[in-house]
């Protein structure tokens, strides 16, 4: 997980627009990096860097749509805001279907763009936090012994200790010890908390 501030990544082949967006981001105190082509961005792409992508849909060479698809193929989670021209509506619709967060038509009001950027940054932060959480849980689950994992799975399925003991052919007392170790190792405060964590780990 990067410790850097979230960054607005601008990819646009028009230098004037890149520089203008850079100044706009600077004026509201957002960290910004600009790239003149999709290829340039891909070369610098780091999945761990937080932020959002402001992407011109119509660029010479690799288009914004193509870049987005390439990023999806890399399981990138960075939210994408497309900026589109007048006649690019159908392209924008396609981008939305592909999973882009938003698109905004040129020329745009700064407030609209900044709102969308703030929204995307929040989304990215949430996503990254959730991902990190998930990662933490699955790391802890990995740390359980095989017996503890068996016990946990049966417990989260809702079986009482007695049934679990019977199923595994060990004493109810031993189950209780395993159960408290599982709770402790995962940092769960209650049974419902444990169930939630287990579900989240399985989402991955």
């Amino acid at each position: 997980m990067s410790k850097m501030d979230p960054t607005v990544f601008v990819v646009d082949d028009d230098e004037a627009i890149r520089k203008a967006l850079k100044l706009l981001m600077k004026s509201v105190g957002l960290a910004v990096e600009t790239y003149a082509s999709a290829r340039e961005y891909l070369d610098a792409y780091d999945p761990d860097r937080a932020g959002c992508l402001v992407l011109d849909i119509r660029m010479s060479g690799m288009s914004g749509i193509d870049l987005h698809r390439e990023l999806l193929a890399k399981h990138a989670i960075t939210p994408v805001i497309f900026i589109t021209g007048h006649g690019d509506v159908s392209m924008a619709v396609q981008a939305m279907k592909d999973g882009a967060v938003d698109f905004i038509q040129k020329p745009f009001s700064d407030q609209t763009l900044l709102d969308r950027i703030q929204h995307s940054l929040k989304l990215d932060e949430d996503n990254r936090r959730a991902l990190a959480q998930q990662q933490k849980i699955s790391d802890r689950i990995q740390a359980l012994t095989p017996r503890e994992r068996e016990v946990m799975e049966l417990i989260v399925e809702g079986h009482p200790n007695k049934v679990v003991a019977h199923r595994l052919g060990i004493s109810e007392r031993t189950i209780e010890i395993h159960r408290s170790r599982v709770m402790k190792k995962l940092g769960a405060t209650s049974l419902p908390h444990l169930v939630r964590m287990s579900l989240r780990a399985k989402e991955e």
Partner: protein
Amino acid sequence: MQNRYRQDSARLSAILDATVDGIIVIDRRGIMLEYNHAAERIFGFSREEALGQNVSMLMPDPDRSRHDGYVDRYIETKSPRIIGIGREVTGRRKDGSTFPLDLAVNEITLENELNFVGICRDITERVESSRQLEESRKQLSVWWENAPIAKAVCDLTGRIIRVNEAAVDFWSIDRHRLVGSTIDQLTHPEDTQQCLLAIRELAEARRERRTLQIRFRKSRDEWSIGQVHCTSVRNENDVPVEIMLQIVDRTAEVSAEEEAGEHRERLAHVTRIGTMAEMATGIAHEVNQPLTAIATYSQACRRLMQDDRIEREDILDALEQINAQALRAGEVIRRLRSFVRKRESDRQLVSLNDVIREIVTLANTDSNLIEFEIELDLASDLPRTKVDPVQIQQVVLNLIQNGKDAMRDTASADDTIGVRTRRNAAGQLEVSVRDCGTGISEVDASTLFDPFFTTKKSGMGMGLSISRSIITAHGGTLWFERNPDKGLTFYFTLPATIGDEE
């Protein structure tokens, strides 16, 4: 005396022998007294064989037997047939062969005796070459007359001297009227000058040949198109004396080419309409880029200045950029306008109704446009007008397209688009396109003709703006009025060309 005579005689003989013409002197009975070297060569008889013999031995029959009679008659009547005149006769050589002979005879009196001196020349070669000349003249005349292309020879001022059969066919004028005609009577008034210039160039030996395409008068208002190869005919001093025109009739080809050209133009026109749509998207993008940059820079400046974090450098840089980007947008518009202006030169004198009929036909075959019927109401008394027909069609098509777009959502199936031409009170040609569409709000009406104004979901708002600049460039006006019931009517005017003159 005797001695002197001998001297004289010797001198005379020497002179006679040196002469290239055959010289024979006879007495009144026809007996040869003198017979020089040249005569020996011509007739094959030696001097010894000839002297003392009757000159008739040098002639074939019937002259041979009649010659004595000729001499007697002359002496009797003094009316000459040949004496002092000279003529072409037939001679006879020693070997009996005959040949053409140019003979001049004069009477001389020597020592009181009437004698005759004949000077003769073998003209076999001359006769032969003139026969050959005649033959090739005949051949030439066959070639000339029967040549498949029209040929005419004119003098250096352009007056026709001779023509061949194909030329008579080409002009469909009697030969005797054609010969003596001048170039300006035969050519289209617009082409006469060009043709005369070419003739002058050849006449002044500035060029040897020229090829032109000229319209020739066929009848009162019918013209043939000829490709004319002009060459100068020069005399032995290489000075042009006549001009030969060889004319290939290209009327059929040219009219086929023109038809193909019209077809191409029509295709190009359809393509241009498609290109306009594509271009519109491209221009929208190109104008959007600088506008976006301008908007973003200015907004960033405002934000920077609202805060305390003003950095002079940033603001100055942004303002400079705003300026540069505004100029960039202006450049795009300038390019667009020059695109529209580029075709101004194609103005022709046309019937406005024909122009409109053609584009309406086209609109009716365009699948995107056929949903509503187009009603034509064309005035019959319109004078012609000098316009670029393709541009005017672009305007009309744009207005029809707008009308249909406006009607698509609200109009019923029997609503129509009305296209009308008339001559207005000011004498201008007026075209109107009426729709039954949704009309327009007060606010939109004020910006309707602005570039990039549009109420349509797709489209970039250049149509009316371009249309207005086309009409303005033609010296007309484009405006609209609200219909009393529903929809709008767009009008434009074009100047009428007075008296159909250029």
